[in-house]
């Protein structure tokens, strides 16, 4: 077996440790809450979470074992980190500010931002799609389906 820590191996170990901690935390939570609730196990709301935690425990150990047997040159899944974070961040910002600046304005702004960021350069198309799509969604949800959009 090869030794040394590649990026893939470190991530695999972190995953295993994370789920091991989750399992232990859930066991501790279920036990403490159960005894505080003063009910029999057969009726306890914490019986099933405890069962899940006990099931998760060997699985997290299996992950750690898998991480241990990973080769030094195991590939790590690569992804466009910056693009993902920016698109995710823009979406989160949209969700946060939508209640303050209303659905229509927030949606038009997000669509323009995303179209531009993802590489669309036909400005007329961006304008038509951003405004048109927003108004169609507004008409469908707010007017037809009576969803009270912010």
């Amino acid at each position, binding site marked *: 077996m090869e030794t040394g820590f590649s990026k893939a191996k470190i*991530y695999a170990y972190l*995953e295993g440790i994370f*789920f091991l901690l989750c399992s232990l935390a*859930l066991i501790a*939570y279920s036990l403490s*809450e159960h005894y505080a*609730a003063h*009910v029999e*196990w*057969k*009726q*306890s*709301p*914490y*019986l*099933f*979470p405890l*069962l*899940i935690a006990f*099931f*998760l425990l060997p*699985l*997290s150990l*299996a*992950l750690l074992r*898998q991480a241990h047997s990973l080769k030094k040159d195991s590939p790590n*899944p690569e*992804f*466009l*980190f910056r*693009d*993902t974070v920016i*698109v*995710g961040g823009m*979406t*989160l910002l*949209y*969700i946060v500010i*939508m*209640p303050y600046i209303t659905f229509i304005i927030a*949606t038009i702004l*997000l*669509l323009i931002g*995303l*179209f531009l960021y*993802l*590489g*669309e350069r036909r400005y007329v198309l961006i304008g038509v*799609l951003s405004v048109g*799509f*927003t108004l169609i*969604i507004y008409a*469908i*949800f707010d007017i037809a*389906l*009576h*969803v*009270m*959009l*912010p």
Partner: protein
Amino acid sequence: MTELLGIFSYAVDLRFIFLVFIGSLSGLFVGSIPGLSVSMATALLVSITYSWQTSDALATIMGVYVVGVFSGAISAILINIPGAPSSVVTTMDGFPLAKKGDAYKALIYAVAYSFVGTIFGFAALAVVAKPISAIALRFTPMDYFLLATFGLTTVGSLTTKHFAKGLISACLGLFFSMIGIDSVMGTARLTFGIYDLQAGINIVPALVGLFGFSEVLMVVSSSESKEEVNSVKYQKIPFKEIMKHFPLSLWYAAIGTVIGALPGAGGPVAAFLAYSQSKKIVKNPSVPFGEGAVEGIVASESANNACIGGAMIPMLTLAIPGDAVTAIILSVFYVHGLRPGPMFIQTSGSMFHAILAGGFIGSIFLLLLGLFVAPRISKVITVPKRILLPMVTILCIIGSFATNNRMFDVYLMFFFGVLGFFMRKRDYSVAPMTLAIVLGGMMDSNFRRAISLASSEDAFMKALIGRPITILLIIFILITLLSNSKSLKKFLLKRRMLHASNG
């Protein structure tokens, strides 16, 4: 007879037919555009159809499901990228055939045999649902718990390369399903003081996040490649030549229906199995398999579409979904206050008829849209991701907001989207988690009921797991767990090698 009358009453309802058509048309585009999935569209539809009548919601969803599964073949044939996972096998012969200038022929075969597969699957559903429900009536709470556990273990084993990761995904789903007020004792559980969590994790934002927003992030995170599109030129193909493969397609459809009925297996597995069967059965294909053999397309498309009816069987009779889409459809039932299970056909017969009618009408639209629209949408399937993704993002957000008119659900959707993204990047399938979120509440209540009932008996263990059905289910679970255990496989291999060296 009553079944036929029930189905017929929907088949002549113009509103119902129109809604199936709308769903079918959406399914055609969603399924054929790589990056958009049938599960994503169905999850979004749950939020849109939240306030509709159940039969209207089912009509639309059945249209999307039936035509969406077929239309994955369009991009598989034209650009070598399957629009849906179940069309992966169609690329093997569909794309080579299209490259030879026979794209139209490949499409027509895909349409015809998707239709045959769909009809076969729904006919099987109509025939076997009642007998299975009758058997399921004998199930105890422990059996239901074990059946759901069996479903989760098979999904865990079939949807990921690493069994442990599949099961961890299921555990996470069960964990999320436990959040909220406990249905038995009325205690707030795992809410950590967050008021909005007391109502539990709403299934709609969770599904939209896991299948919709995570898909957006997945596409953004991978670099876009330019697709080569095969042109579609009309060809005259004799009906007799197309129907030559009909008898064999029934065998592939039977494989698809059985595989579809196994929780978690779904279209890709069925298509692969049928394809390998066709390689064994068909000794003289039109051209060698993998080089554009129509026999390959027939096998793949008959099987993957037959899975739809198959996946409905356990969902309607046992409340155990056969795949991710049926898990979402199950949530539609819950959202509309219906309880699938052994009594479903008796208590909600009209909904059962609506599903069958939706499936049959959907398959007719599959035929019509497949023959007349599919050959003309090669431009649409290459809509740039930079145009598509922002709109899908908005639909995910509004779709999750629409369920309860509250921003908390949108944050939930965002959370599940990011979680789903990381899970998929790290090879954790989100399908077991989806199934677990849907089934978790049922598993919890049945498990506790089983324990309560057994504890009032003298022989606790016998009462809990002593019945033949229960023992059978435990054996099934153990077989699934052990057959996927790497350590056991290594041990058996070592023993075999030792035997070989001694012998």
